[in-house]
């Protein structure tokens, strides 16, 4: 087997509760601004939890009515993020051999609004037939296929759905497909638009959602804090253009970072309770893939959901993997600001990691005044932290169901 090829990121795009372009996202992320607020929806009266991290995104600004007839919100996010990413990459994808391009998109719920709209029509409104595009809008692969159709992708077009780690696995698998020659370029990332009545109700039932902070709803997600009460659901997308290092250099592209390592593993111990061993294994796999020692990592973007179990388990897993270095490696959970974007979480958090690499500034964990005594690492509490240099950053993503995905970026 030939040596795997190096894979780099040359474009990134984002739709998020912290803004719908890279600069807004960066500014809000490093300023500690929260995108969490009262949910703006007509079904709020029926919810126990009325906070969420919503995107200020109106599809009518970006798509024609004709296009929108086929696009669930999840595909709108994915397409607009990809438009930004492709533009930044400088590539004219329609002039590239279509068979050399792949598309790898993570999503947890796919077209949740279309699914729910269909059920509402059938079961609530008593209509006996569905809109003709329900399948095309609702299917989990809709976002990936919309991107692939628009940009002329004839290589592998693969949707990954591993709950909260979907985007990490999608990006990691995309990098491996390029590394081993299955394609030369890829659009990879994640998209999620699950703030529907039924989906929120399902999450409520699981009893993992944060209580609204009585003083300020924006501060309701409090990872690693003693008074954390759970996660806050969010929506959005981030996608990237990936290509080989050689290809990027040859065409004189600006390289944003190298995907230096990817580790995936399955935490089989329980459907929802994470284990230290399970989380540690995926970090170890990523380090081995990148051929790095643990102490070479300069920053960890934590999974950091704000649930009781995750934050303690992740802290312990980091200690297990990083040993004596754990205490000096800054770890932060940006979910404190953008919420938990589920199938898109890892993609948005990879953008946060790119921001850290490019600005030598670590995004903070907000709303962390009194840490849980069992969470005793440097969580970059409440204020972004400047560092003199940063070469490698790690982004952790774990998931209900067990699939973990850890990515390591290297500054080029």
């Amino acid at each position: 087997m030939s040596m795997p090829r190096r894979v780099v990121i040359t474009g990134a795009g984002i739709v998020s509760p912290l803004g719908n372009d890279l600069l807004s996202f960066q500014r809000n992320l490093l300023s500690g601004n929260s995108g969490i607020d009262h949910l703006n929806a007509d079904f709020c009266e029926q919810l126990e939890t009325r906070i969420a991290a919503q995107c200020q995104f109106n599809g009518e600004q970006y798509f024609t009515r004709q296009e929108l007839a086929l696009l669930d919100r999840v595909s709108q996010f994915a397409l607009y993020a990809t438009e930004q990413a492709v533009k930044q990459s400088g590539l004219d994808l329609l002039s590239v051999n279509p068979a050399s391009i792949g598309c790898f998109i993570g999503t947890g719920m796919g077209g949740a609004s279309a699914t729910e709209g269909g059920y509402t029509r059938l079961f609530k409104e008593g209509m006996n037939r569905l809109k003709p595009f329900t399948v095309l809008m609702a299917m989990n692969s809709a976002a990936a296929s919309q991107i692939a159709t628009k940009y002329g992708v004839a290589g592998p077009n693969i949707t990954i759905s591993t709950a909260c780690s979907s985007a990490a696995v999608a990006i990691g698998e995309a990098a491996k497909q390029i590394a081993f020659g299955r394609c030369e370029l890829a659009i990879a990332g994640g998209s999620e638009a699950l703030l529907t009545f039924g989906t929120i109700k399902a999450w409520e039932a699981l009893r993992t959602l944060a209580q609204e902070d009585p003083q300020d709803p924006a501060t309701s997600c409090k990872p690693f804090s003693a008074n954390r009460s759970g996660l806050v659901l969010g929506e959005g997308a981030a996608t990237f253009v990936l290509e080989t290092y050689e290809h990027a250099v040859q065409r004189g592209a600006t390289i944003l970072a190298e995907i230096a390592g990817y580790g995936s593993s399955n935490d089989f111990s329980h459907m929802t309770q994470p284990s230290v061993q399970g989380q540690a294994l995926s970090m170890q796999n990523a380090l081995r893939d990148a051929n790095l020692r643990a102490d070479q990592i300069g920053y960890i973007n934590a999974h950091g959901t704000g649930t009781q179990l995750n934050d303690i388990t992740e802290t312990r897993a980091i200690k297990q993997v990083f040993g004596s270095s754990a205490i000096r490696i800054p770890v932060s959970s940006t979910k404190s600001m953008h919420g938990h974007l589920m199938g898109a979480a890892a993609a948005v958090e990879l953008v946060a990691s790119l921001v850290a690499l490019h600005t030598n500034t670590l995004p903070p964990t907000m709303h962390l005044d009194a840490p849980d005594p069992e969470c005793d690492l440097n969580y970059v509490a409440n204020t972004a932290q400047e560092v003199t240099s940063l070469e490698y950053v790690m982004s952790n993503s774990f998931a209900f169901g067990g699939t973990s995905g850890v990515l390591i970026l290297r500054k080029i």
Partner: protein
Amino acid sequence: MNNTFEVVSKLIANKLEIDQQSITRQSKLIELGLDSLDIFDIIFQAEDQYGIKVPNPSEEVVTVDDVVKMLDELLAAGASA
């Protein structure tokens, strides 16, 4: 003024965000900018509006008039959904 033509041309104009007056009976659906899925959607919306069911919506329709005639025949036959 044929009411069915009015309804169909309005649906098309609304989808394509174009002036309804620019649509004639002889306008070809593809040339107006509709693809096969869009045509499917137009027929679906007309079905909803009239409470009828087009038995075979994949039947070849080329012009606006083809859609209008197809709907008129069903309406005349008293077809219902």
